[in-house]
């Protein structure tokens, strides 16, 4: 397996979607290639950083501003009137 193929299959390997044979080949490359170890670690850290952003977003209150609720309800009332 080349580094190009390693990078191509990386996501599928992380998701456990490679066949047993493909996994063995992938892991054999991983054992022998320092640049690909660095690439894999940075890729995993990227996923983790995106996850941290997602988790932090969950802590931010997500109420709809009152004026937006009013605008939507007013537009709906107008539409109802127009039939």
């Amino acid at each position, binding site marked *: 397996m*080349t*580094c*190009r*193929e390693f*990078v191509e299959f*990386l*996501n*599928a390997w992380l998701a456990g979607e490679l066949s047993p044979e493909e996994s063995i080949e992938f892991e054999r490359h991983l054992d022998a290639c*320092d*640049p*690909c170890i*660095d*690439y894999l*670690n*940075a*890729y995993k*850290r*990227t*996923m983790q*950083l*995106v*996850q*941290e*952003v*997602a988790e*932090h*977003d*969950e802590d*931010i*209150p*997500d*109420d*709809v*501003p009152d004026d*937006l*609720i009013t*605008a*939507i*309800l007013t*537009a*709906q*009332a107008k*539409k*109802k009137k127009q039939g």
Partner: protein
Amino acid sequence: MSRVPDLDPGQEASLVQRLRAGEDDAYRALLELYGGSLLRAARRLLRDEDEAADALQEAFLSAFRSIDKFQENSRLSTWLYKIVVNHSLMRLRSRRAKGVESLDDLLPQFDETGHHLVPPSPWRTESDSPRDAAQRSEEEAIVRAAIDRLPDPYRTVVVLRDLEGLETAEVADLLQINANTAKVRLHRARQALRTLLDPVFGVEVVT
């Protein structure tokens, strides 16, 4: 859709009935129940407060109008989520992307033998440099900005899959692409993000 709250089936059926009867209180209840998490999804997709508000308004008016088409075997939250995401995506398609990168420039390059053209740099790990709250928040801003620099077909997959927490099949359904394309786009987007974040998180190796 995991991030939108659900009513119990009895309450949901009663709310749908009141919406179909055109009760003003039901419209407000629907907005108060689901508006917040749906506005967050629209903000994530559109990256613009005014456009997200407009998309939410269009989506709710469309939902009120088509409530008769809602099928009881699906969840109200899922149905609304799809409408909001579709209105957001329509807005995205109609505007010209600004400040985005070409994806090909952000993918790793290989020589003719398939080896890395430039060896990837190792990254500092959490244990190398523990972060305080201020650093963490600074890093999150950097990651958000990097996500924003992805071309829309890739950014939308990251937003829906990784930020909104949807399954790949749900993402594919919303974007009207097949699941394999969604997976490929997600993988490319993560590779591009790694490249964009490399100057910040990579460690220079002294040889």
